[in-house]
């Protein structure tokens, strides 16, 4: 493989690494931070399931991003990834619960503007609506699970220690589901822009199994996320577990499961098809923000606890992020594309 291709792919891998470092904390942060699950166990489960989710169910959201703007040159994809990564970094510096999704969408729109490609307004509107829907649905699911869990705990009379053991197991299972959903939903952010210009070729194993070039890209992206989980997420997990969310272990489970369901809903082709078959509006397969799903779930629980744990300041910051992050990503994308084209003489589109 050409060295230039590897260098350009590194942009996506960097984005994958930062996704693993930050978003794994949304899945296992409370469990690890409160020492309910060991970091090593969490990191292993998270990595395996992120990769599985990316390869098995990552296609749907990638297709949607592709419809927004099919970047057709590797330097263009590289620019989009670096712009997304940088804008996420900038927003993180300001303490905003950012989303790589919003960043990559902004960056793709930036590429569309720079290259004069048309923007699919319908797809853009669908994606924008899911940004609002994601925390709202997460809040509703968390509220439902909160009421159910409370009822179960009231009726079950489990010993405190047995409840602890059940909660640990539930956190681990919910975390595995969350990691799978994260991989399925967010792999599009990391590798989506490279799909139309994948440098890989399909691998056929004994005419039984085909490992497509897209799946190879997703595997690579999944591995990058896993490396991010192992190398940098520990600190973030302890921060999320101890500072951001002061939740009891059962409430932590509710947050993780609500987050996981939301990510899964927006990534599952099966559920979308099923809803369509019974004449209900199909769920758009769009990469959504796991951070915002978590905050939405916490707010949902907070509302049921009469506002005691509602983090309204973070809710406000999310709303600011909806507008600011894509704009910043688009602007950075424009600058990088200009530099690549005019200084490094790279074709950013064909």
């Amino acid at each position, binding site marked *: 493989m050409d060295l230039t291709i590897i260098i350009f792919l590194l942009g996506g891998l960097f984005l994958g690494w930062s996704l693993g470092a930050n978003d794994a904390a949304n899945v296992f942060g409370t469990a690890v931070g*409160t020492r309910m699950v060991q970091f090593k166990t969490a990191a292993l489960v998270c990595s395996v399931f992120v990769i599985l989710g990316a390869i098995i169910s990552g296609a749907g959201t990638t297709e949607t991003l592709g419809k927004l703007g099919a970047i057709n040159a590797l330097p263009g994809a590289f620019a989009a990834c670096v712009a997304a990564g940088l804008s996420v970094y900038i927003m993180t510096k300001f303490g905003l619960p950012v989303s790589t999704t919003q960043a990559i969408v902004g960056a793709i729109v930036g590429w569309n503007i720079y290259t004069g490609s048309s923007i699919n307004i319908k797809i853009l509107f669908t994606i924008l609506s899911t940004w609002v829907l994601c925390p709202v649905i997460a809040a509703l699911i968390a509220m439902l699970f909160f009421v159910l869990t409370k009822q179960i705990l009231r009726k079950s009379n489990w010993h405190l*220690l047995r409840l602890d053991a059940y909660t*640990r197991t539930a956190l681990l299972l919910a975390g595995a589901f969350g990691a799978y959903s994260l991989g399925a939903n967010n792999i599009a952010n990391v590798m989506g822009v490279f799909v139309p210009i994948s440098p890989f070729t399909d691998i056929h194993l004994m005419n039984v199994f085909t490992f497509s070039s897209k799946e190879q890209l997703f595997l690579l992206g999944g591995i990058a996320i896993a490396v991010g989980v192992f190398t940098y997420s520990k600190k973030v997990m302890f921060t999320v577990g101890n500072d951001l969310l002061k939740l009891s272990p059962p409430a932590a489970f509710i947050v993780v499961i609500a987050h996981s369901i939301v990510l899964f809903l927006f990534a599952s082709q099966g559920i979308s098809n099923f809803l369509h078959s019974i004449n209900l509006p199909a769920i758009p397969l769009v990469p959504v923000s796991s951070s915002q799903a978590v905050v939405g779930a916490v707010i949902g629980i907070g509302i049921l606890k009469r506002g005691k744990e509602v983090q309204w300041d973070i809710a406000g910051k999310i709303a600011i992020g909806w507008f600011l992050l894509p704009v910043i990503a688009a602007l950075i994308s424009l600058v990088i594309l200009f530099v690549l084209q005019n200084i490094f003489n790279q074709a950013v589109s064909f």
Partner: protein
Amino acid sequence: MFSFKTKSLFGQTKQLEKEIDQFVDILSEVGLLFKSIVLAYLNSGITDKFDEMVKQVSEMESRADKITKEVERTLYEETLIPDARSDVLRLLEHLDEIIGMYQGNCYHFSIQKPDFPKEFQDDLIKLSETVVSCVESLCLTVRSFFRDIKSVRDHAHKVTFYEKESDKQFSSLARKIFDSELTLDKKMHLRYFVEKIDRICDQAEDIADEIQIYAIKRSI
């Protein structure tokens, strides 16, 4: 390297549940034994039966200590119930203090051999019965804290009720003692015993209050 301790986690959990139940059983049994010890002392003074029962209390106290240490070790080594661990350990230590108070009272009877005149004996028996009922209610409060959190308040309320009863009985008995014809040194000696027994209820009420706070912390 990576530890999936699901099986051993549930095994340990069962073992710890058993140990905590045993600890509360000991607290309850020591109370019943204490009631028998007071009765035996007032009826026959220091006898072999009395000594045997005091020895049993000591053995139970040692067993309770062992359980506390074992629970403490397991909770910390296996990082179980991280959010409630310190509360549970503090609770066990405070309950252990009640067992120690029972044991201390038995030893005081055995060593100091207080001379309770007949006229005070019924009141002393009533007081010790109230104290034991108070600790029995505390045992139920403790068991509720672990298994049935919504009942904590009901049992804790009974602990408070018995504590007030015990205060009334203590005041009445102390008044009777000081109104009697006994010499001041004897009066003070008897008051010391009555006060020591009544203090068990105060400790029980403090623990019941603590448990109510722990129960609020345990709500999701």
